[in-house]
C-alpha cells in the first residue's frame, strides 16, 4: 500500500518556548479532504503553519508521500506539492495582481490563463497593485496564487473569514470546483458546514490537541454534535 499524501505523527510544535500543538496525528490520502474545526485560538493556524515548516517543532514527524519533510524549509515543501492560503492572505501588496501570480508559478496544468478563467475577477484586476484590492479580491488572489504553485494539497486557513456574502459564494464555488478535480485539501473554517460540505473527514481541535474525528457527512447531518464538539 502506498503511503498517504501527508502524514503527521506525534507532532509537538509552537513558537519559541511556547508549545501550542501537543501530539498531533493526522493522515490525508491523495485527493482527500480534511476539515479542521475548533474554536478560536485552539491551534488550527499553528497546525497549518507547522505543515509549512513555519513553527518550532520539538517532536514528531511530518511525512510527504512517506518522506520525512520536517526538516525542510517552506519553499522546498511547496516545491514538493504543498500550497498555502494563509489566514491573513498575505498577498504581496507592492506587486501587481499578475506579478503576485507569476512569482508563484510552478510547472503544471495551472497557469495564468487557467487561474483567470476560474477567477475572472482577478483577470479584470490584473494590472492593479495588491494594496488596491478589496478584502475579497485579496482572498481570491491568495487562492489563485496558491493554485499557480500547482499543489497536490491545498491548505486553506479560514478562506471565508470576513468576506461579503457574494464573495463567500465566489470563493466557495472555486474551492468546490477544485475539490472536484481531485486536489487534496485541508480547510480550516469557523462555519463548520462550509468545510464539511467540501471534505470527506473532519477533526476537531481543542487546546492544541485533536479531540474528535468524524466523517464530514455524518457530522454535517448532526448539527447538535458539531456544537457539542466545537462549542460553536
Amino acid at each position, binding site marked *: 500500500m502506498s503511503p498517504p499524501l501527508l502524514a503527521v505523527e506525534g507532532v509537538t510544535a509552537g513558537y519559541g518556548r511556547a508549545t501550542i500543538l501537543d501530539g498531533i496525528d493526522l493522515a490525508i490520502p491523495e485527493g482527500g479532504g480534511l476539515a479542521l474545526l475548533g474554536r478560536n485560538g485552539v491551534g488550527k493556524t499553528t497546525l497549518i503553519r507547522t505543515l*509549512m515548516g*513555519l513553527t518550532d517543532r520539538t517532536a514528531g514527524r511530518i511525512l510527504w508521500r512517506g518522506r520525512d519533510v520536517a526538516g525542510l*524549509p*517552506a*519553499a522546498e515543501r*511547496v*516545491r514538493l506539492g504543498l500550497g*498555502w492560503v*494563509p489566514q491573513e492572505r*498575505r498577498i*504581496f*501588496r*507592492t*506587486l501587481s495582481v499578475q*506579478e*503576485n501570480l*507569476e*512569482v*508563484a508559478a*510552478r510547472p503544471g496544468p495551472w497557469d495564468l490563463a487557467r487561474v483567470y478563467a476560474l477567477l475572472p475577477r482577478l483577470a479584470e484586476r490584473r494590472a492593479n497593485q495588491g494594496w488596491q484590492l478589496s478584502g475579497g479580491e485579496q482572498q481570491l488572489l491568495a487562492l489563485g*496564487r*496558491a493554485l*499557480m*504553485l500547482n499543489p497536490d494539497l491545498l491548505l486553506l486557513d479560514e478562506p471565508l473569514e470576513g468576506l461579503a456574502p457574494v464573495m463567500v459564494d465566489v470563493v466557495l464555488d472555486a474551492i468546490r470546483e477544485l475539490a472536484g478535480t481531485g486536489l487534496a485539501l485541508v480547510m480550516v473554517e469557523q462555519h463548520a458546514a462550509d468545510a464539511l460540505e467540501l471534505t470527506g473527514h473532519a477533526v476537531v481541535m481543542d487546546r492544541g490537541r485533536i479531540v474528535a474525528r468524524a466523517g464530514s457527512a455524518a457530522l454535517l447531518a448532526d448539527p447538535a454534535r458539531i456544537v457539542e464538539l466545537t462549542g460553536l
Partner: protein
Amino acid sequence: MTGLPVVVFDGLAYGMLLFLMSVGLAVTLGLMGLVNLAHGAFAAGGGYVAALAMSRAGVPFLLALPLAALAAAVGGVVLERLLFRRLYGRSPLDQVLFTVGLVYVWIAAATAAFGAGQQPADLPGFLQGQVDLGGVRVGLYRLVLIGLGVAVALALALGLERTRIGALVRASVEDAEMAGGVSIRVGRLFALTFTLGAGLAGLGGALAVPVLGLDPTFPLKYLAYFLIVVCMGGAGTVTGSFLAAAAVGLVDVAGKYYLPEIGAFAVYGLAVAALVWRPNGVLRA
C-alpha cells in the same frame, strides 16, 4: 555664483559614487534585514584591486574597473556563504558588532598587505580635462561618473520592476516568509543580490579612487555617508537610494564649498531633516 554649476556637477558625481557604493547595502537591508556595516569594505576592496592592477600590473583603467567589480562580487559571494548568512535573523546588535569587527579586520589586513598610505590612481589622459556644456566648463570624469550612476540606477530599477527575478526580489523584500510559502528560495536570491551589491560597491570603489583617494580606513571614513544614504533612501529601494545619494553628494559638496567652517556638518543636517520628514525613506509617505 560662478561656482554653482561646478558645485552641482561635483556634488552629483560624488553622489553617484555614494549610490554605487551603498545601493547593495540598501537592498540587503531591505531583503534580509542585514545591517552590514562592513559593506564599504567591498568598495575599498574594489578600489585596491583597481589601483594595484593599474600601478603594479599596468592594467588600463577601463579594464581595471570590471576587474574590481568582479573581484568584489567574488569576495561578496564567498563571504556571504561563509559569514554573512549566519547573521540573518540575528539581532541588529549582533549584526552591528560583528560587521564593525569585520571593518577593523579589513583595515588591519589591508594595512598589513598594502601599507597605511594612499594608493596612487591617476586618471588616464582621455578622462582628464574639461568639457564645455553650453558655456559651463565641467570635469569630464565628473560627467562620466554621473552618466554611469544614472545608467546603473536605470538598469537596476528596470531589472527590479520589469524582470521575473526583480519581482521575486520585491516579493521577498516585502514578506520573506510568504515568499518562501510561494516557493521562492529567498536564501539563494539573497546571495545573488548580495553578490550584485558587492560588485557594484567594488565598481564604485574603483571609480572613487581618483576622486576620493584610497587608504585602508576607507570603509570607516565613508560609513556614515553610506548609512545616511540608506536611511534617507529607505531600505530595499534602488530609486530611494539614488535620490538620497544625489542629495547627500550635492549637500556635502555645496556645504563644504559655500560654508567651509561648518559645511562638513551640512550633510548631517540634511539627514536629520529627511528623517523627520520621511522616517521610512524619501519615497515612503
